[in-house]
């Protein structure tokens, strides 16, 4: 909401600077979004009238005008604009004037013709962002007067009003707050409360729950026309477009007092006013020119035929005030906030009126606003008002009194607030002390503060007025007992740190994914109202997102991609949410450096190395690979599955423009965490180990795992470690038959308590070779 500082000062006797006001409003909880300077405060820019205009002798695009600047001596001005006619009044910058942008006006020749000043556009005066041609002033503008008489200098402050404070949505409301925080006096606009009379049959309230009180006042024989400049200027400054004097008054009073009003053309209201819910499929032409199809959820103001307004939201197109209107019906009412909100939202039709009714209006302000608007209409549009306002229904009850325990106030704030400070704060905000005793005070809440309902609401008010800066921060609480979430967090951070140490970078991909990013292995949950199909599902795996990131990096020219993510995955079924770790690898295994050396691509075994680093000893069991994986294995630790490892099918890798293997891992973090054990000391061997290498030649399909199983299962007590150190195949069949491979394995022997002799190691090694030959029919090189 925008407020004008000049306008605000009509209601509060406070004379601080703009900066002080901004600081003050911020303190009260009114967030200042923007401060803008408006108006045209240029002493040497005057209102002038164009007397004559003729073509410039030397330039087609220019004209030469004679203008009256009020001095009695017409001036000659050269002008490039074309949007004026002789007799128009315009702003004239006299020599010596300084316009925005430090633009100094002086007498000079333009294409050989003397110009004694400059006629100005709205843009040149800083009154508009963008404006073509001269600013044409109202016909009644006083020639010779400074332009600031029409456009007084002002500051417009844009405020962000929280939804609980509907009472701030007016200049008077902000003025009250300024007064409460500074001790200044509030000046309410003059107005005598009108006499009221029951409306009888003329107004019928069918839904008292949605419209508890309705008032209407008839004003006869008005003359509808443009509003005077001061009114137009005020409305325009805070962002409203002037329409005509009647509509402008209703808007002005709304911005002044906070009560939305509506004026009907009395001739267009047939029979009387019925406040009812709409019929299904009932049509309504609103003032915005659009037709709305209503339902029984929407409250309307109807005459005896059709709806003439959407209650509290917008008036109807064919019942509004126009130039031909003679009699006006001025509505001032209260509508249920929830009902107005539902209607505005359902129809996507939000107005200044709905904005205020949604937040609640001051029940005591309804008739005051009606009286204020009536007085202004009669003043500006003539006519005469009925002596009485017709009313229907009951004015909403005033808020109930609230009792405040001062001890509770002090305890909750953590501040020994003085008795007088509590009373002063609440009194300043317009509350009335009803009772006191026993360390408590009981307060009557003013009708515009419907948000104050409980003791804690009063404590908040005391806190606001006293100020947070009075409260000293306190840090004295016992530590809480850590639980599972702490252990989970720590474990996840340790995984992240290990993976970063392994050279991988942490990614964060979106939880919401497209259907194409779901792999078919888990049932997915869909969002009912996604922003688009590309974000319609909750991811069932981290891998599709990581693969998209791999592709992005390939396209950016990366030579090597190692990404991981720790995040939540989802499925339809139990567990619905779980923490997962995803890894994706592609590209060069090492970055090139000056040592040279062989380059190779990351592959399956590098991914397995990551599993080894995180999970320790494990087994892989091949599982059927679903698209896009071409190869997949389950990862088992002590027989328990902890996740899977896979390699993209070559076609799927090509689809990512990956020219080397793309390998992925997905681990269940909780499965991994269950296996986490605190390390404990194992004795460091005192006697040296002895190693022997064996080079096995075997058929290609024989897996290393089978060989290792035979070695470890042979019952050789001295054998403590088995490590492959070379794998060789020769598809050309020159050094080795093409259907065989050579695996060189290093065997480590050791025993506690003594150094092994060469003979016993050799004997053990021979026994192992015999065993391999017997069980697996391998040869040795």
């Amino acid at each position, binding site marked *: 909401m925008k407020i004008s500082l000049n306008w605000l000062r009509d209601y509060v006797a406070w004379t601080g600077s703009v900066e002080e006001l901004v600081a003050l409003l911020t303190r009260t909880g009114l967030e200042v979004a923007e401060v803008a300077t408006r108006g045209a405060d240029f002493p040497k820019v005057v209102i002038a009238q164009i007397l004559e205009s003729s073509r410039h002798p030397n330039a087609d695009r220019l004209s030469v005008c004679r203008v009256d600047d009020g001095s009695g001596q017409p001036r000659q001005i050269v002008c490039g604009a074309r949007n004026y006619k002789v007799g128009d009044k315009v702003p004239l910058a006299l020599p010596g004037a300084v316009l925005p942008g430090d633009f100094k006006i002086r007498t000079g020749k333009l294409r050989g013709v003397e110009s004694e000043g400059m006629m100005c556009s709205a843009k040149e005066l800083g009154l508009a962002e963008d404006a073509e041609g001269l600013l044409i002033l109202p016909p009644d503008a006083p020639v010779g007067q400074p332009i600031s008489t029409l456009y007084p200098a002002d500051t417009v402050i844009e405020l962000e009003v929280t939804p609980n404070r509907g009472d701030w949505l007016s200049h008077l409301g902000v003025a009250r707050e300024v007064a409460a925080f500074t001790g200044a006096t509030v000046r309410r606009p003059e107005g005598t409360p009108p006499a009221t009379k029951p409306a009888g049959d003329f107004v019928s309230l069918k839904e008292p729950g949605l419209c508890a009180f309705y008032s209407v006042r008839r004003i006869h024989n008005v003359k509808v026309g443009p509003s005077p400049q001061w009114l137009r200027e005020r409305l325009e400054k805070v962002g409203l477009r002037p329409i005509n004097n009647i509509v402008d008054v209703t808007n002005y009073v709304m911005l002044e007092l906070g009560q939305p009003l509506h004026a009907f053309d009395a001739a267009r209201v047939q029979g009387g006013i019925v406040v009812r819910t709409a019929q299904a499929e009932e049509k309504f032409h609103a003032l915005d020119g659009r037709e709305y199809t209503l339902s029984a959820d929407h409250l309307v103001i109807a005459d005896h035929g059709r709806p003439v307004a959407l209650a509290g939201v917008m008036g109807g197109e064919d019942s509004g005030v126009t130039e031909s209107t003679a009699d006006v019906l001025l509505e001032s009412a209260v509508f249920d906030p929830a009902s107005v909100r539902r209607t505005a939202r359902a129809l996507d039709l939000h107005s200044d009126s709905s904005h205020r009714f949604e937040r609640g209006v001051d029940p005591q302000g309804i008739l005051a606003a009606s009286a204020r608007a009536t007085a202004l209409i009669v003043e500006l549009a003539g006519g005469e008002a009925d002596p009485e306002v017709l009313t229907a229904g009951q004015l909403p009850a005033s808020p109930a009194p609230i009792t405040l325990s001062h001890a509770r106030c002090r305890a909750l704030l953590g501040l020994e607030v003085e008795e007088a400070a509590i009373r002063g704060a609440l009194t300043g905000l317009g509350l009335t002390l009803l009772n006191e005793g026993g360390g408590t005070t009981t307060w009557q809440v003013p009708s515009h503060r419907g948000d104050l309902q409980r003791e804690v609401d009063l404590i908040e008010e005391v806190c606001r007025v006293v100020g947070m800066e009075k409260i000293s921060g306190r840090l004295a609480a016992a530590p809480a007992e850590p639980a599972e979430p702490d252990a989970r967090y720590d474990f996840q951070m340790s995984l992240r740190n290990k993976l970063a*140490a392994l050279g991988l970078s942490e990614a964060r991909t979106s939880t919401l994914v497209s259907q194409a990013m779901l792999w078919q292995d888990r049932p997915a949950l869909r969002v009912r109202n996604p922003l688009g199909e590309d974000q319609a599902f909750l991811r069932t795996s981290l891998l599709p997102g990581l693969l998209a990131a791999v592709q992005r*990096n390939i396209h950016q020219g990366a030579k090597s991609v190692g990404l991981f993510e720790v995040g939540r995955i989802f499925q339809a079924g139990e567990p619905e949410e779980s923490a997962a770790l995803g890894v994706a690898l592609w590209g060069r295994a090492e970055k090139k450096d000056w040592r040279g050396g062989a380059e190779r691509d990351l592959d399956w075994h590098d991914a397995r190395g990551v599993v080894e680093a995180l999970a320790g000893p494990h087994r892989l069991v091949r599982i059927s690979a679903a698209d896009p994986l071409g190869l997949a294995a389950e990862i088992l630790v002590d027989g328990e599955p902890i996740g899977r490892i896979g390699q993209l099918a070559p076609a799927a890798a090509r689809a990512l423009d990956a020219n080397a293997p793309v390998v992925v891992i997905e681990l269940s973090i909780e499965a991994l965490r269950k296996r986490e054990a605190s390390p404990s000391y194992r004795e460091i061997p005192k006697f040296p180990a002895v190693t022997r290498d064996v080079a096995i030649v075997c058929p290609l399909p024989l897996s290393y795992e089978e060989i290792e199983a035979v070695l470890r299962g042979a019952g050789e007590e001295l054998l403590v470690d088995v490590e492959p150190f070379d794998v060789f195949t020769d598809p050309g069949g020159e050094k080795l038959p093409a259907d065989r491979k050579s695996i060189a394995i290093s065997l480590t022997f050791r025993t506690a308590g003594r150094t092994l002799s060469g003979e016993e190691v050799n004997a053990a090694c021979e026994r192992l070779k015999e065993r391999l030959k017997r069980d697996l029919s391998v040869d040795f090189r």
Partner: protein
Amino acid sequence: MEDRIASLQTEAVTAIAAAADTRALADARVKYLGKQGEITRLSEGMRDVPKEDRPRLGKRLNELRQAVTAALEQKEAALAAEADARALAALDITLPGTVRDLGSLHPLTRLLDKAVRIFRRMGFVLADGPDIETEWHCFDALNTPPDHPARNEQDTFYLPDGRLLRTHTSTVQIRVMESQTPPVRIIAPGAAYRRDEVDATHLAQFTQMEGLYVAENVSVADLKGTLEYFFRQLFGPGTETRFRPHFFPFTEPSFEIDIRAEALGGRWMELAGCGMVDPAVFEAICSRRGDRAFDPDKVTGFAFGFGLDRLAMNLTRVPDIRMLVENDLRFLKQF
């Protein structure tokens, strides 16, 4: 013979001293001390020396052998020292180091972990809750009216069964109070979702950190002390904190916190929302639990929440929030 010993010593010591490298030194060793070497041959000549001269000449010969051996050792050590010095001098210390690149942690993770460590120092523990939540946990229990705009389908993602993706991590406050008894003192980092069109400053999914402290006699002073400490630790000494009155349905009084710190460019920046837990929230918890463990007449508490994405952007000068989820390695490796 005696003359021969003297001249041989002079000759050998000179030759050894002149040896330019280890090979020349080895040749010298063979020439004088080898099996066919000159000193060896001279020793063999002792057989022809008269008996009475033998002890004297034997002693001289021995001295010769010792002198040559010593010269050899000395020269050998000198050559080795020279070779060592040359080897080190030849190293081009200006070539770049070779090491496998370290990976990197996501900037959000780094900020989150820093925040977690500060709160832990103050005695907070972690808590968490699901991303998929019930409307009760996300809105009802947090005193949000049934027609509040945030519940709108335009603003919140719903699942077909009526549950939703939490719009804030404040749901964890409710989860914690459902299952624990006071005192509770938790922080809860996690994902939250809003139906915002994605642009340079908005993501539909973002990261928040929630905090809650409920016990007897918790006051605004505790709230202020805790958050002032936190932001001072996060942004450094000299950080200014401003509590601005605000409105949230689930706290009363409520504040927004503005921070001014060098690390954030030295201008006021709105960073967090906070307040004292609204009694209505405690009442909702009490009726859910069926007990009075969180009776608002007995306990009070404060809660706070802030978004990490925008904060990470401001701290690291990232111009576009989408960079946080694009996972471009040229970006990720900067952290």
